[in-house]
């Protein structure tokens, strides 16, 4: 494999959306806990689109895009490089995944 240099700054959008992924992923997981624990929230989400899952998806995807857009304008690339962005992708996946799996885990024993 060719040895590559390490001097290119990661593009602003890539950093902004990388950070946004971490936040949106955790938001996704926490919204599950909130709507499952607080029925009026789930009912309200259902009333917006006809199904709570559709509203959930819209909230998460819109948050990711809007947050990513604004974070892309924030000059984060000076503080966050590609390695840190990789760490955020992994952290977002692990944290989001663990919260979701952990929350529903008790059902495995029903």
């Amino acid at each position, binding site marked *: 494999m060719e040895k*590559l240099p390490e001097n*290119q700054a990661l593009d602003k959008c890539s950093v902004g*959306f990388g950070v946004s*992924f971490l936040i949106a992923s955790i938001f*996704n997981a926490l919204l599950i806990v909130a709507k499952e624990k607080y029925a009026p929230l789930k009912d309200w989400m259902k009333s917006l689109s006809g199904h709570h899952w559709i509203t959930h998806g819209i909230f998460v995807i819109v948050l*990711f895009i809007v947050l990513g857009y604004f974070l892309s304008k924030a000059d984060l690339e000076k503080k966050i*490089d590609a390695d840190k962005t990789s760490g955020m992708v992994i952290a977002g996946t692990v944290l989001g995944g663990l919260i979701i*799996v952990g929350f529903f885990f008790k*059902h495995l024993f029903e």
Partner: protein
Amino acid sequence: MWKELMTMPHVVLGVFGILAAVWVAVEAANSSETNQHRLKLASIGTTLFLWLSFLIGGWWYVVYYGAAVSNSDKSIILAGPWKWSHSFFMEAKEHIFFMLILLSILLPIVTFRNQVFKDKKIRNLTIVIALTIVVLGLGMEGFGAMISKGVKMSLMGGK
């Protein structure tokens, strides 16, 4: 027959999305000036396949899977011995899939807005995103299998 056939594209397109993400990882690992078009093509392919899988699967889930009738998959599972194939595997799957969708948007942002072959860290980021898609995607396939098995166990009376 339409309803039954439409269970297949969700799975098949999901597999195509996983394969495209593997392709991205391979192109990124061997990135040079000459393979950038293939890297971008594979990353767009990943996005398209995962979104199509998501939209078709989501439509099937909302319209058929969870329908409030006695012969929907959800009702059948909850009436049988493997209730957890819905209450754990389906509940987790339907929400973990959102993470895949976010990653499928992030991947082409990185491959189109950076010259991946010029920086080792950016190349590694591309590989991390692609392989995370692969791992989550394979997890979704496995979860889907457990959900299908939950229906089967109910129809077989738990045998």
